[in-house]
């Protein structure tokens, strides 16, 4: 078996007296689309932030490609090939869509000095346009990102996350607030990207439909611990999961 792309080992995190995440461990392998779901307060976001280095866990380690990423700065994590999308406010509103995407790729080309001395787009315009085309935002390429609709900004967010060719992408509630048609498009594009690039995804989501049809494997969290793990079908019929969501516990 190949080494996991992402390896989360015994992560625990408390805030004051509240144990947000208790001893959570899981692995994600190349090409998987893993969904992390759970009712509100289950610790998904806290876990997510621990993986991304936004929060320091009280215990446990996170390894990406067998390298420990504890305490790593977001920019270094990105350089390692980890991308992410954000729940909110994820684009640069006063820059054009094209510039947003070029920016997402430029930090991976050459050195800081070469970026100062070289051409303004660092030769990325073609690639950026391709990415924008992939997400079908071509007609908006010169528009200010801030003028895009919410759903389009989410697509742009994804384009930016993928621009540098990451091996692992963490998506933070990508479906939140997006209308149905756009949602279909987003899901379809994510699946297409995953299949053509074999990129590994980890998705936190509330929208069950979205998660079930997008993900290849699902982990369910409740009250900070994993209560179920398996394929979408298995999860759908898992009693513990149903109880957790309906407050049966």
């Amino acid at each position: 078996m190949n080494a996991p792309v992402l390896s989360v080992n015994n992560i625990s995190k408390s805030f004051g007296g509240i144990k947000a995440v208790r001893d959570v461990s899981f692995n994600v392998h190349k090409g998987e689309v893993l969904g992390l779901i759970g009712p509100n307060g289950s610790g998904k976001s806290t876990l997510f932030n621990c993986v991304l280095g936004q929060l320091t866990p009280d215990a446990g380690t996170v390894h990406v490609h067998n390298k420990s990423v504890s305490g790593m700065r977001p920019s270094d994590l990105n350089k390692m090939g980890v991308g992410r999308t954000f729940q909110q406010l994820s684009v640069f509103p006063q820059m054009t869509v094209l510039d947003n995407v070029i920016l997402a790729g430029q930090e991976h080309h050459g050195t800081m000095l070469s970026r100062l001395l070289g051409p303004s787009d660092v030769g990325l315009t073609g690639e950026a346009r391709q990415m924008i085309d992939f997400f079908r935002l071509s007609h908006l390429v010169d528009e200010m990102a801030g003028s895009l609709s919410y759903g389009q900004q989410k697509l742009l967010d994804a384009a930016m996350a993928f621009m540098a060719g990451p091996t692992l992408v963490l998506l933070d509630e990508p479906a939140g607030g997006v209308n149905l048609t756009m949602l279909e498009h987003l899901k379809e594009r994510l699946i297409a990207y995953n299949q053509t690039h074999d990129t590994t995804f980890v998705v936190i989501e509330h929208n069950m439909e979205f998660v079930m049809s997008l993900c290849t494997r699902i982990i369910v969290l409740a009250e900070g611990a994993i209560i179920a793990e398996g394929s979408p079908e298995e999860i759908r019929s898992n009693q513990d999961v149903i109880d957790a969501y309906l407050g049966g516990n």
Partner: protein
Amino acid sequence: MTELLQILISGLSAGAIYALAAVGFTLLWQASQTINFAQGEFVMIPAFIALALITKLGFPVWLAFIAAILLSIVFLGAVFKRLVVEPMISHGTLPLVIATIALGLLLKEAVKEFYSPLGQPFPGLFSHDTISVFGAAVSFADIANFVVAMGVIAGLQWFLNKTRTGRCMQATAQNPDVAQILGVDIKRMVLYTFLINGALAAIASILITPVYLAKFSNGEVLGLVAFIAAIVGGFNQIKGALVGGLLIGVIDNLSAVYISAEYRQAVPMILLILIIMVRPQGIMGESEGRAV
């Protein structure tokens, strides 16, 4: 040895007053993310308010002091919050930082223009008689200043920890969202913080100005000392501001004697640069996680 004791005591005395300014500064930061670059001028102004009341309106000294404290609470506290800080909250920290820098400048130049560019003698609260402490000649004023300043800080600590309002203020500083849900009027709590800072600055002003003469430029030094004390002590802690203030007071006095007079001012600054390089969370601070 007695010389050392003398320096230590007068250093602690000055340090306790610096601590007042540093504590107020830290409180503002904690409660409302306000970095008040005009803090030094806030410690300079009340002395001039008192002076104006005494010389132009003939107030008796004790009344002028009380009036200065009250006026500071109103203007350096409430009005400052309402007119300067509140409108800028939505714009982020940077415009606010710049605005307080400009405010400090404005206050300084206003005093220079409208009162006087020259240093003015300022009535002291306490006599400068010396008394003997373990053989060292110590000024009564120094001891009194120390006692008053520490008393104020102790009172503040008691207020924050033992009263309901104080605890609400702490809650607001630590987690405004949760505090609000629990029914705390966070706007009012933040206002109280500003009022307290106005009072602290005014008390510091009254205590320290007799030493330096009242001059428009006092804010430069006092402000710098307050910032350094707060940072050295650990930006986020009241205890830290206290420790930082005392430390700077002692170091400053030590350097006046053992290091050249010309470079005396440099010592706290070198301390600041060292602390930021070696232990940015300050002496008493805890290592902060990344902001996000």
